[in-house]
């Protein structure tokens, strides 16, 4: 029952924040006692909620030594937010509200779209076929050991 009441309270709270009453006690950076009470009651995740604390994935470089400390979470207590679970949904732009999609985001969408197409292919790769005629060997570093690779002869 707490869930549904949360939703109702949330909209009430927003109007309350934009209203006048809240402003007076808002001199410090931290929450006022009333704000703390509201947060504790409506938003704070507690054990009784039966849901796991959301955490963002931590970056790791496979090819470099990692300097970052991986933050420790209690086993099973945290739910790592996935950036790849819904990849099938990502080959088109999602709706926006106030912030537009960045160029970087559009690149991501296009690449997801491209991968969706490549996924259907078996064996021969259309991307390769398309680019092969444009390769000039003077543009690339040809490593002595693997001069034969990748430039599969266009058949």
């Amino acid at each position, binding site marked *: 029952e707490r869930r549904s009441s949360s939703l109702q309270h949330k909209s009430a709270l927003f109007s309350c924040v934009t209203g006048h009453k809240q402003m007076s006690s808002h001199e410090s950076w931290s929450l006022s006692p009333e704000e703390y009470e509201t947060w504790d009651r409506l938003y704070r995740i507690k054990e009784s909620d039966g849901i796991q604390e959301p955490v963002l994935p931590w*970056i790791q470089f496979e090819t470099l030594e*990692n*300097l970052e400390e991986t933050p420790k979470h209690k086993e099973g207590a945290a739910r790592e937010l996935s950036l790849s679970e819904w990849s099938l949904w990502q080959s088109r732009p999602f709706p926006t509200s106030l912030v537009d999609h960045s*160029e970087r985001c559009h690149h991501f969408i296009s690449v997801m779209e491209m*991968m969706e197409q490549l996924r259907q292919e078996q*064996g021969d790769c259309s991307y390769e076929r398309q*680019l092969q005629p444009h390769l000039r060997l003077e543009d*690339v*570093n040809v490593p002595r050991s693997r001069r034969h*690779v990748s430039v599969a002869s266009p058949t």
Partner: protein
Amino acid sequence: QRLQAAVHYTVGCLCEAVEEDKGVQFSKQSIAAISEITFRQCEIFAKDLEMFARHAKRSTINTEDVKLLARRSSSLLKYITQRSEELASSNMEQKEKKKKKSSAAKGEKTPREQEAAVTESEDSNMS
């Protein structure tokens, strides 16, 4: 497209090195996808670098701008900084050896650094 082909070729070589190293196989499609990502990432890098340089009221992109590209990961930043120091010292040696080439060395530094950054992004994409 000629550029894309060169990127694709180079990505193929790098992937091959990883294949040998890790004992895994890349499908041609995944190599194509990495190439396309790399190609597009270059566009993002290029624009960011230009902005960083302009923010510092420069028109020439230097190694400090490149380091900014790597700011989000301290591992990556450390790696790039090391490489940049290596490059700087080898550039110094070269300058001392061939003083007549000193004008060319400076202009050459930027694209080479950029390439280093790009190679890095490929590495991360591959992982």
